[in-house]
């Protein structure tokens, strides 16, 4: 599965959304209704899925779906 698809799938699952609504420029908190605990859950799931570690200061910069995808691509490559 491509990183983009995986990220959309995880976000949709965690936030109980239709994957079609998880568009790249959607903000996790303001548009998709995530709360701070959901963001932490999301980060932890990404850490497990991709076997990486996301420091808090980097996690704070992840505002939109696209941010998450870009970050993961950089981190994994």
């Amino acid at each position, binding site marked *: 599965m491509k990183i983009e698809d995986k990220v959309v799938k995880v976000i949709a699952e965690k936030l109980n959304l239709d994957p079609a609504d998880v568009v790249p420029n959607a903000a996790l908190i303001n548009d998709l209704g995530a*709360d701070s*605990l959901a963001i932490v*859950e999301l980060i*932890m799931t990404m850490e497990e899925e991709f076997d990486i570690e996301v420091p808090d200061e980097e996690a704070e910069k992840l505002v939109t779906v696209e941010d998450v995808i870009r970050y993961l691509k950089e981190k994994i490559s």
Partner: protein
Amino acid sequence: MTSDIKRTIVVTGGSRGIGRAICAAFASPNTCIYFNFSSSQATGEETAAQVSAAGGIPRPLRVNVASEKEVLDFFKTIVDETGRIDVLVNNAGITRDNLLLRIKDKDWDDVLEVNLKGAFHCTREAAKTMVRQRSGRIINITSIAGVAGNPGQANYAASKAGLIGFTKAVARELSSRNITVNAIAPGFIETGMTLKLPEKTRAGIISQIPLGRAGAPEDVANLAVFLASEAAGYITGQVIHVNGGMYI
């Protein structure tokens, strides 16, 4: 193993005293009771026997809750084996009683490490699973000493008061995920911890209890079972006393 388990309960310090009574009270068919012990004398056999007698599945493990690594392994085992955590009871506690002027740094640190940091370690790990499953009950066993104070127990009282603040903060954090977090504050309960006090001291304490007797570990266990039940779903962030009126 996963398919038969309906409920997974984790009790720290479950090999004796209040912890043993809590394990026994939660024991029922298809319920897996994980409990740890750390002291070298303890084996957990008696608790395991009581859990089995009630039809539960006992899983005793030697874990020092003050060790982050050991707690991580403990919870990994639990989740690997049963796939869920329904109830966490942070009961593990030690005393290193002395008057303030005689408390050594090590006595302070040991008590805080087990009673407070241990609860933090276990709660953090359990919460990872509970947040995902969108349900859970966390019960912290604090003490009357953490509310009213007790001479000779500055370290213990500080750890137990700390546990109350911890309970309240975590209750607020996890409430949106259908997880309740409460504290039980036992008064004077008949356990190894209180039986080692001199008879005269014990009699003096009991004379101060309106109900005129020490409590039994089961008195505390019954409340823990209630707080973990469906019936208690609207109670969170509270400190509930079980003390025969010793502190009102």
